[in-house]
């Protein structure tokens, strides 16, 4: 008995304490409760994993749902995949909690923030530890809820609440797909437990159930796309940056958005049986990567740049999954968690230093004002740009090689995207830290509670590539192919470096050249800068029709017309009947009683005639 339940329960307890009594606590108490709860669960994870997980650890607590042939236990399990996720979630989570105590120090609703954050940790841990799809779905919805709450944390800002609603609604679409997938799984495998599904998949020969399994996989993909911001459901993630920066780092970079990746990896067995779905996944991933990367080149808001970078990196992970290298995907998930969390936290530190200025055009030259932030961000920079031997290089490399093995053209697109990635990150770095200071006010370095996590994450994103995740995951996800053709590796590295170089050329060597290029591109630049007008497109095609339709048809027609009509009709009929029946109502209790007695006499007599109650 490893008492796995402790891992999710601890943050939940933190949430309960802060949520119920946080209003009366001092800030130090709140942060102590919140941070310690997460750190404790991190330590417990370490204790559980210290025993090694050659055999998956399963703990069934009670039968949750028993209905017909479906029996869903409340069961937590830890295998190596979960172990990796647990380490990332609780580890990075703890760092970000620590960071948040510094970042949010001056904000209102301090206890609210940390209560939500702990609740999120609870649901995320539930998600990764669940041993069946339904429990996973609970965590899935829970993290969605928390992300909604935290995006709308500054609920006085209209944009924040709108962003929250957007995130929530777009996620609903994904969750709809997911739940459909769950229904299909129940129909197909008569169970929702991962093991049963795995067994079922291996049991039946492919050709019989290919259609069904493909459907399941595609629906799962819809869910994953919703949660992990893939085309066409990625639009909520950039807006989600309205939330506080630690939230963007924890939820919208490191953990929640990777839930989709985790889910697909968890269902690897299913996907492997559905090559079509695999290709779809790969294409979606690739498309997302390219799209987001190109948009990222043209944004001025530092957090938005990193948001699009997140989207494109997630695209990479899906590319990996689609090309069958699940382990590589998870690996990139881990490294990405490190350097993207770092990027966001760094951005947060920058914003903190700039007194909540997010526009890169008003920054610059911050290198000398906030060195600690700069150097830690530099680590993330080289990591994401794929500069060997840093973490991003390894995982991205593994993905690209897998893509090459899958479809060579995917490799080339990926490489291009890698270049673009390197470019926009370098652009952000140059605009922020180099050149001369274009802002106003005096930037100040952030407190230790923020810089220390930055430093730790910096080290991780430098060295994180040497956790050989694919090797560790072999028992779960099968062996990754090992050969590293030097040429391919070299090409991707060159792409990355060239991206950096171009950025240097455009923003350091020849400042202003970039704008002129943008003007010369004209329409194309506008198209990209306005995110391909995707939002506008959705509004025109989906949102407006739905609103209009429900107003005219559902409200005016169905509700006001039909339902009210039925209700009023019933009422009037009742009144007409009553106008007759009220003659009997003299208001005298005893005459009612007499009637009752008469009725019972009738009953009794009939019974007697019928021959008693034998």
């Amino acid at each position, binding site marked *: 008995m490893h008492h796995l339940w402790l891992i999710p329960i601890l943050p939940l307890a933190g949430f309960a304490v802060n949520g119920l009594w946080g209003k009366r606590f001092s800030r130090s108490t709140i942060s102590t409760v919140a941070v310690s709860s997460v750190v404790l669960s991190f330590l417990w994870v370490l204790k559980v994993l210290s025993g090694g997980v050659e055999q998956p650890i399963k703990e069934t607590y009670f039968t949750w749902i028993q209905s017909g042939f479906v029996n869903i236990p409340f069961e937590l399990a830890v295998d190596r995949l979960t172990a990796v996720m647990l380490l990332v979630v609780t580890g990075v989570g703890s760092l970000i909690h620590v960071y948040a105590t510094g970042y949010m120090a001056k904000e209102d609703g301090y206890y609210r923030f940390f209560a939500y954050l702990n609740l999120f940790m609870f649901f995320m841990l539930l998600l990764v530890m669940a041993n069946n799809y339904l429990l996973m779905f609970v965590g899935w919805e829970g993290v969605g809820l928390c992300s909604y709450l935290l995006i709308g944390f500054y609920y006085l800002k209209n944009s924040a609440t709108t962003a929250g609603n957007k995130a929530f609604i777009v996620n609903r679409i994904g969750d709809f797909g997911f739940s459909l997938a769950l229904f299909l799984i129940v129909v197909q495998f008569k169970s929702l437990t991962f093991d049963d599904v795995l067994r079922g998949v291996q049991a039946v020969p492919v050709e019989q159930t290919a259609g069904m399994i493909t459907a399941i996989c595609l629906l799962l993909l819809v869910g994953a796309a919703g949660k992990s911001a893939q085309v066409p459901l990625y639009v909520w993630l950039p807006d989600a940056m309205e939330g506080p920066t630690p939230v963007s780092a924890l939820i919208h970079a490191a953990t929640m958005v990777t839930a989709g990746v985790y889910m697909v990896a968890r269902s690897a067995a299913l996907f492997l049986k559905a090559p079509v779905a695999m290709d779809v996944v790969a294409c979606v991933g690739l498309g997302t990567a390219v799209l987001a990367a190109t948009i990222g080149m043209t944004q001025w808001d530092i957090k938005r740049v990193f948001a699009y970078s997140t989207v494109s990196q997630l695209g990479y992970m899906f590319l990996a999954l689609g090309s069958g290298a699940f382990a590589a995907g998870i690996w990139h998930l881990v490294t990405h968690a490190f350097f993207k969390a770092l990027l966001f936290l760094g951005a947060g530190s920058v914003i903190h230093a700039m007194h909540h200025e997010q526009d890169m055009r008003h920054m610059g030259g911050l290198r000398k004002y906030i060195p600690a932030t700069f150097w830690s961000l530099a680590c993330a920079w080289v990591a994401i740009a794929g500069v060997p031997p840093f973490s991003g290089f390894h995982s991205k490399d593994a993905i690209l090689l897998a893509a090459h093995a899958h479809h060579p053209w995917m490799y080339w697109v990926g490489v291009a995207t890698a270049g673009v990635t390197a470019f926009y990150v370098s652009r952000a770095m140059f605009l922020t830290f180099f050149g001369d200071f274009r802002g106003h006010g005096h930037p100040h370095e952030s407190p230790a509670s923020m810089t220390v996590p930055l430093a730790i994450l910096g080290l991780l994103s430098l060295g994180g590539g040497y956790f050989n995740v694919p090797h560790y995951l072999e028992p779960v996800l099968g062996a990754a192919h090992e050969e590293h053709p030097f040429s391919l590796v070299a090409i991707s590295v060159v792409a990355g470096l060239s991206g950096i170089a171009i950025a240097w050329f455009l923003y350091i060597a020849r400042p202003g050249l970039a704008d002129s290029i943008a003007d010369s591109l004209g329409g194309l630049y506008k198209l990209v800068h306005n995110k391909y007008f995707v939002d506008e497109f959705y509004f025109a095609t989906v949102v407006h029709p739905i609103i209009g339709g429900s107003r005219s048809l559902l409200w005016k027609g169905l509700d006001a017309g039909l339902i009210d009509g039925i209700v009023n009709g019933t009422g009037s009929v009742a009144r007409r009947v009553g106008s007759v029946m009220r003659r009997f109502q*003299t208001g005298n209790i005893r005459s009612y009683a007499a009637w009752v007695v008469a009725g019972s006499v009738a009953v009794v007599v009939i019974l007697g005639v019928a021959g008693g109650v034998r």
Partner: protein
Amino acid sequence: MPPLPQELINGVPINAYLGLSAVLFTLGVAGFLFRKNLITVFMCIELMLNAVNLSFVAFSYKHGKVDGHLFTFFVMVVAAAEAAVGLAIILTVFKNRQTLLVDEVDSLKL
């Protein structure tokens, strides 16, 4: 004392109990119909409940099960609740219209 008939010596026939309960119930109904005092009427309801309880217990003796006792128990609890609320209502009625006659309290109509 006259000697009892033999078939009565070895116990009371169950339907004597049932008959007793029927009689009590009918008396309760009669009281409900003919009494005019709200409280008395209310007590007649209690009497009916008791009569029914008796038959419940008798039946559960007949079947050698305890279920009838539980019904009786529940009836008691419900009667307690009913008494609390009903008497409160009676108090309010008296407070508002200074009467306890059921015939006076008949404005709930048309």
